[in-house]
């Protein structure tokens, strides 16, 4: 089992990981087709294409060049698999085992002790995929003309602010850039390493300045030619977007945007051929330990599929080289394993980052005062929790793959608290009835349903998104359990965007969703304190208040205390202090028991063809850790 001590994060320590001495220029090697082009003179020699000190990627095996990585994207808005496979080149990155942060585009990172200033040394001579130089000016373009441009960024994201002030980025010299905050921003490097930290390294100035009013005086006529309503729309359509360029579909639909990624788009997303193809970036700036320029694989070929069942069939047929998305459910595990031999693949295990398979949140901020009173009654929630037969849910819905637990950090997390994970999780109908009686709802009507404080039977609706069958199935079982203790629960299966809509407008009685924050307690604590206006379904108006005290509802004291502690975490650079504060937040969450958890998430799996190398057998499943990107897909290779 991998351990994740979320402590080793700062640049100075992490930079030590990368003290592999730069190789001599004459030793660099490259893919055969690039060598040919270099020979013909259509491409500069490899030593000129690489930066002076290319990043050296150490892997289990030294690979061979060539081949297509066949994989797929399913449905619309599926940029995330593109990001996870080829779109993760930030200033810093997670180590493959998620134990820390290492420099990436930056060769070196220095953080001041009080976490107010971060200095990044870039790699001299590094180039975009079109051969143009990459440097501090590109980062300054992102800062001055995107982040600080009020049209493109109406409000600077919290991660780029501290003490209420946006970050100040300055060019120290040609290869050094500094980020200075008005106060400590202890989570800054974590943020940069996460999937959301792509901003600074994704804006090639020489490409985007054409679409920016500061640099292009004739922008109006261009806007008119393109038939868009304004320059912001044009900028967005050309691939730029405020928070993260790779989450903009337009970025993946263009082939002309220069990038630092190992593969650049050749056949864009949305092409009518039904394929998306990315080809090797000849200017990619990483090498293996023998000085061979990465990536090993020539092309990444994504089949653009509409339906997950087709994807599954392609996997079973061996048409997919490596993939861990869309088909890899517990339900499908059986057919996938049964076809291993036929499809000539094996499975790698993905350890679930998610802390719980399903979080059941009663709306503690319900508009109806009676329901709010009932839901806020902790004994009521405890009673319901005891009424749930978690083992049976595991046996029936998840092929006995789950371990009953509440919403809490996972055992391998430094924040693990056995008591928090197991409180009220035991199946005990007597105890459930006891608590529900204690809550004050001992009276029942003719059908055996408990009566609420208004003398009416207690009945509520749980809303669940139609993402997959497991949640509705689980809820059908839970409906039965609640019935046994005299609580009437209905379930409604609805479209996921409708669910979001109802949650954000605080219209739901109760809702279920997956739980994040099993490991990544710092960046995804939405189930421990209500700070996310979509995910923290037990107190959405509180989260709205957190984002903007003029909105939502003023939360009770204990929530305010949590908010205060979370602010303090961001305001300190001291890791030990951060952990202390986080533990305090978790203690309040444990005491409050905001929402009911069911069980640990079953581990997920990845299909890997037997000739597809350098994919570890066990790794983490995450989004802030956008697996498998931190595993260095550029160093995956295809054998015979």
């Amino acid at each position, binding site marked *: 089992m991998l351990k994740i001590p979320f402590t080793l994060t700062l640049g100075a320590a992490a930079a030590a990981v990368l003290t592999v001495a730069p190789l001599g220029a004459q030793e660099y090697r490259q893919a055969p087709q690039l060598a040919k082009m270099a020979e013909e003179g259509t491409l500069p020699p490899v030593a000129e294409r690489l930066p002076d000190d290319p990043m050296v990627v150490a892997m289990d095996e030294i690979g061979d060049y060539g081949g297509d990585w066949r994989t797929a994207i399913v449905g619309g808005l599926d940029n995330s698999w593109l990001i996870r496979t080829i779109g993760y080149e930030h200033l810093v990155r997670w180590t493959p085992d998620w134990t820390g942060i290492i420099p990436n585009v930056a060769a070196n990172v220095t953080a001041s002790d009080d976490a107010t200033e971060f200095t990044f040394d870039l790699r001299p001579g590094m180039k975009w995929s079109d051969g143009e130089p990459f440097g501090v000016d590109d980062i300054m373009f992102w800062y001055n003309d995107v982040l600080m441009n009020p049209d493109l960024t*109406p*409000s600077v994201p919290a991660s780029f602010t501290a003490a209420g002030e946006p970050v100040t980025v300055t060019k120290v010299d040609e290869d050094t850039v500094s980020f200075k905050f008005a106060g400590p921003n202890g989570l800054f490097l974590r943020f940069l390493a996460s999937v959301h930290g792509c901003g600074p390294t994704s804006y090639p100035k020489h490409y985007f300045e054409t679409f920016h009013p500061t640099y292009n005086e004739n922008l109006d006529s261009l806007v008119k030619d393109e038939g868009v309503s304004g320059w912001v729309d044009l900028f967005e359509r050309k691939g730029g977007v405020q928070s993260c360029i790779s989450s903009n579909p337009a970025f993946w639909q263009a082939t002309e945007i220069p990038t630092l990624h190992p593969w650049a788009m050749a056949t864009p997303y949305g092409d009518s051929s*039904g394929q998306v193809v990315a080809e090797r970036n000849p200017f990619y700036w990483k090498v293996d330990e023998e000085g061979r320029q990465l990536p090993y694989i020539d092309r990444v070929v994504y089949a653009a*599929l509409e339906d997950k069942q087709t994807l599954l069939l392609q996997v079973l047929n061996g048409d997919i080289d490596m993939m861990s998305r869309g088909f890899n459910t517990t339900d499908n595990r059986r057919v996938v394993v049964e076809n291993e031999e036929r499809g000539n693949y094996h499975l790698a295990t993905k350890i679930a980052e998610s802390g719980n398979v399903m979080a059941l949140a009663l709306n503690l901020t319900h508009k109806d005062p009676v329901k709010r009173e009932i839901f806020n009654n902790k004994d009521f929630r405890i009673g319901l929790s005891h009424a749930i037969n978690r083992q049976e849910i595991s046996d029936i819905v998840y092929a006995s793959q789950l371990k009953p637990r509440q919403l809490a950090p996972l055992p391998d997390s430094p924040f693990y608290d056995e008591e928090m994970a197991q409180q009220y999780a035991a199946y005990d109908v007597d105890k459930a009835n006891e608590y529900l009686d204690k809550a004050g709802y001992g009276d029942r009507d003719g059908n055996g349903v408990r009566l609420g404080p208004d003398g009416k039977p207690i009945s509520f609706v749980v809303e669940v998104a139609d993402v997959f069958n497991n949640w509705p199935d689980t809820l059908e079982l839970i409906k039965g359990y609640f019935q046994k203790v005299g609580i009437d629960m209905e379930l409604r299966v609805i479209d996921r965007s409708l669910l979001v809509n109802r949650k954000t407008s605080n219209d739901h009685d109760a809702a279920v969703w997956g739980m994040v924050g099993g490991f990544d307690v710092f960046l995804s604590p939405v189930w421990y304190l209500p700070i996310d206006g979509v995910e923290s379904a037990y107190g959405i108006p509180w989260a709205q208040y957190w984002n903007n005290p003029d909105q939502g509802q003023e939360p009770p004291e204990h929530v305010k205390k949590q908010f205060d502690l979370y602010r303090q975490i961001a305001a300190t650079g001291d890791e030990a202090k951060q952990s202390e504060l986080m533990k305090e937040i978790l203690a309040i969450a444990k005491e409050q028991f905001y929402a009911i958890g069911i069980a640990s998430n079953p581990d997920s799996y990845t299909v890997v063809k037997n000739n597809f190398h350098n994919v570890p057998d066990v790794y983490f499943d995450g989004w802030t850790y956008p697996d498998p990107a931190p595993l260095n897909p550029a160093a995956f290779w295809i054998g015979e």
Partner: protein
Amino acid sequence: MAIYIFKRILLMIPTLILVSMIAFAIIQAPPGDFLTTLMSGEAGETVDVVQIEAMRARYGLDQPIWVQYWKWISGIVFHGDFGESFEWKRPVNELIWDRFGLTVLISSITLVFIWVVSIPIGIYSATNKYSAGDYVFTVFGFIGLAIPNFLLALVLMYISFQYFGQSVGGLFSPAFVQAPWSFARVGDLLAHLWLPVIIIGTAGTASLIRIMRANLLDELPKPYVEAARARGLSEFRIRVKYPVRIALNPLVSALAWVFPALVSGDAITSIVLNLQTTGPLLYRALQSQDMYLAGSLILILSVLTVIGTLLSDLLLAWLDPRLRAEV
């Protein structure tokens, strides 16, 4: 005739205006908008709320519905601009026409398939009513109608995977997807095309068989058939010369309705079979409430149907002058 055509075209205008309004209203019916869809990504993959509000203003989604409608429809009428797809961040115009081509191709081939199969069977069934052949053909035809398309598609796909080890989905083998057109590529296309054509065609075949059979049964007992028989014409000629021709009339009028039905059937089948037709695009646009894309697709499909109706009515009026009086 000219007056008739003129009248019909005039009648089309209010229809089209109403259709465009309904199309727009339909996509506005579900609560929320594209940005709520954007916010509902996978757990953790969500977007900043402040950004969302800014986008809402920029996309004009905070404006009243009629303002949005006018913006959209005036763009179409005056500039041929169908607006922009929020999801794809691209003009709708760039997204749909390729797919329309494929939709029309598949639908046309399917239509031909349906006719080729159903007309002879319909004639046979009508002339050999209640014979064993009639029963066999009708049962067979109706089974096609009775099996839901998505089920048929899934099962056929599984069979081709399990027993033929074929790569499934799409219209081309991976090797031919990007290849330039060649005989081999056409062959590859045909090798993949039969599956969707059969799946989409099954339902239509059954209903056309029935229409053909019923029409012919109405015509066969008429006196003019007897008269022809009395004149000593061969049975084959008797049937083909007049009754079959007249029985074909309703098939012409069915044309207008068959096309949208094919497109709808095509949507479900295309999702399962991964065909790059308008169906899956429309379905996804509706799901993500990508309103200009969805609205434009609905509008174009509806307009095609209205025009199809007009053409088939004109064709009928030309074939059968009695009908002209009815309008």
